[in-house]
């Protein structure tokens, strides 16, 4: 049997952490002295437990262990101490060292509230806006930024009032800083999802120095991307990073929050190589700034890669991911993951079917993106009066269809890949003239311009349906009805077709916008989508409303 003795001599130790949890799982060799019996190797030592003091720390990064010559402590003063005797307090070394020696750079992961002096070197990965607040103590302002160091440690820094003025303009996302002094407070986990139980509050004595030289050892961002198939099993409210290709972008819709404030919401669909797709909800500013950019890209048939840092999983109706205030979006980022996804998408991924982990509550019509309104609410809530149109869905029955004019003669010429569709007029030579194209055609197209009265349990209103929705409502092309009425003059059959289209219930998606006609303001409502009521999904929708109201 071979006995291995391990003898470690530690010189010149300095307490950085007077009270700390045990890091790792140290075990004592059987041969060590009797005091080892006091040491519970697998138990964690609580912060407030005075009996054991360990200052286990990661070695500082190479070359940054700043030791001042003013430090009067001999360089290699041997300080071999019996195990577990409380180490001398750092403060006892006197004021010289405390005031003049630059603090040692330690990893962010080693920071805790019990350290007197520390410095960290880290890159700013995110910078929040300056916010003003008003509470019992009066007015104030605050801003926060997030740091990442070369060991992958992350932490949030918050500044208040005068400290904001000192550092707000200094801090730039992507730059590396040497930061020292400040107090550590427990992280506010509802707002701060960094992997750190602390956050730093900078004070008047704190220093923030820009490191002018680029430090390649500190990554610009730290992601741990989860494939969409993983998100399917993630718990509600989990904060995670994800990356996917944006395949569709819905319009931004105004949403009334529970607190009565209005915000905006926009739903995107993302897919990735896991064969799954997910709905991503952008809220507030993300909706306008990034959302609009994504919408334009997708509209021009370019499907961007979107990386989301700190998205929140929601399990309302399947799984989806939403932005929170600390989320960050990266559109077509320069990451290897993004390039791999792009490559996958361009070489087949685009056309592979992905099953969505976000279940639509209403597969029969509309989606979670829709805002359901009753007919009377359109007027009551003054929809359409803001700058942007309102998009709502009503469940209503068609009660009347205007038939004296239900379609118009449209220009069949192509402008690019779209049909012109402007109204054409008959010329003396039996041709159809388009003012926009300034061209005549032999044939014209007949397109619906249908005035329809819709009704639900709250009231009735008039809406306009153009081509596609008109066809959906009438059940046949406009040309067929036109021929029947004006060429065959079969009024009886025409009336019958119109009659049987009445009193069906639909989910109608409406675009509502106030427009001025001369001096008159009129709210124009256009039917953009017509879906027959699917009773299964409608029941589910109602059930959902019911259960949520409990």
């Amino acid at each position, binding site marked *: 049997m071979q006995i291995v003795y391990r003898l470690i001599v530690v010189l010149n130790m300095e307490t950085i952490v007077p009270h700390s949890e045990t890091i790792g799982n140290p075990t004592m060799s059987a041969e060590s002295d009797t005091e080892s019996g006091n040491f519970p190797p697998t138990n964690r030592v609580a912060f407030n437990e005075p009996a054991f003091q360990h200052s286990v720390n990661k070695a500082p990064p190479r070359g940054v262990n700043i030791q001042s010559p003013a430090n009067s402590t001999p360089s290699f003063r041997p300080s071999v101490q019996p195990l577990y005797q409380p180490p001398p307090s750092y403060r006892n070394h006197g004021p010289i060292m405390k005031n003049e020696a630059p603090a040692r750079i330690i990893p962010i992961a080693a920071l805790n509230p019990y350290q007197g002096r520390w410095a960290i070197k880290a890159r700013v990965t995110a910078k929040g806006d300056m916010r003003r607040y008003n509470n019992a103590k009066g007015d104030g302002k605050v801003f926060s930024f997030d740091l990442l160091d070369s060991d992958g440690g992350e932490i949030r820094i918050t500044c208040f009032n005068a400290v904001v003025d000192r550092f707000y303009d200094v801090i730039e996302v992507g730059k590396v800083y040497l930061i020292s002094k400040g107090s550590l407070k427990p992280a506010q986990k509802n707002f701060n999802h960094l992997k750190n139980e602390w956050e730093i509050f900078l004070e008047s004595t704190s220093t923030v120095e820009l490191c002018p030289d680029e430090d390649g050892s500190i990554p610009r961002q730290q992601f741990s991307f989860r494939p969409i198939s993983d998100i399917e099993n993630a718990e509600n409210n989990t904060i995670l990073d994800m990356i996917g290709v944006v395949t569709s972008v819905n319009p931004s819709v105004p949403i009334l929050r529970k607190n009565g404030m209005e915000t905006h919401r926009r739903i995107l669909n993302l897919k990735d190589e896991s064969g799954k797709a997910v709905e991503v909800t952008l809220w507030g500013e993300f909706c306008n700034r990034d959302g609009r950019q994504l919408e334009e890209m997708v509209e021009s048939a370019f499907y961007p890669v979107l990386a989301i840092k700190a998205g929140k999983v929601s399990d309302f109706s399947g799984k989806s991911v939403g932005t929170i205030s600390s989320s960050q979006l990266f559109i077509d980022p320069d990451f290897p993951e993004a390039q791999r996804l792009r490559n996958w998408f361009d070489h087949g991924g685009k056309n592979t079917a992905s099953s969505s982990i976000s279940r639509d509550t209403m597969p029969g019509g509309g989606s979670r993106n829709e805002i359901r309104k009753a007919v009377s609410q359109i007027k009551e809530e003054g929809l359409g009066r803001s700058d942007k149109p309102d998009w709502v869905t009503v469940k209503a029955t068609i009660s009347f269809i205007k038939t004296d004019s239900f379609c118009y003669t449209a220009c069949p010429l192509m402008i690019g890949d779209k049909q012109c569709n402007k109204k054409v007029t008959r010329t003396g030579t039996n041709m159809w003239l388009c003012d926009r194209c300034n061209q005549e055609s032999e044939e014209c197209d007949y397109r619906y311009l249908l005035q329809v009265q819709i009704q639900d349990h709250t009231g009735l209103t008039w809406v306009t349906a153009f081509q596609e929705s008109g066809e959906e409502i009438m059940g046949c092309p406009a040309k067929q009805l036109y021929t029947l009425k004006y060429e065959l003059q079969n009024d009886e059959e025409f009336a019958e077709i119109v009659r049987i289209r009445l009193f069906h219930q639909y989910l109608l998606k409406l675009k509502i916008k106030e427009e001025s006609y001369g001096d008159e303001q009129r709210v124009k409502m256009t039917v953009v989508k017509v879906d027959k009521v699917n009773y*299964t999904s409608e*029941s*589910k929708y109602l*059930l959902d409303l*019911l*259960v949520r109201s*409990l």
Partner: protein
Amino acid sequence: MDTSSPSAFVNGALLGRLAGRKVRTVVQVIGSEIGSVVGKTTDDVQIFVRGSSPAPLTTYVEVIGIAESDNSIRAETWTNFGNTFDPQNFNELCKLANGEFKHLFM
């Protein structure tokens, strides 16, 4: 509407509690024996529905009758509910009609 003899909405779990009462449920027909139909309730309980069923039966059938035990009903009324019925919605209806919204039902 005849309110003299109301029938309670039930699924398989609720059936046993209402033995002797008039009940109403929807089952997925999975087989038939002489004088009874074997059906699966919307909460996946296999029950026997006794009585003479009309032919043919669709996949889903609503039956109204007297609850005999936790797995059988003596049916008085049979109604074909077609082949595309959503059992989950009905199951939730049964739970709510006997739970939070019991006061709205007879």
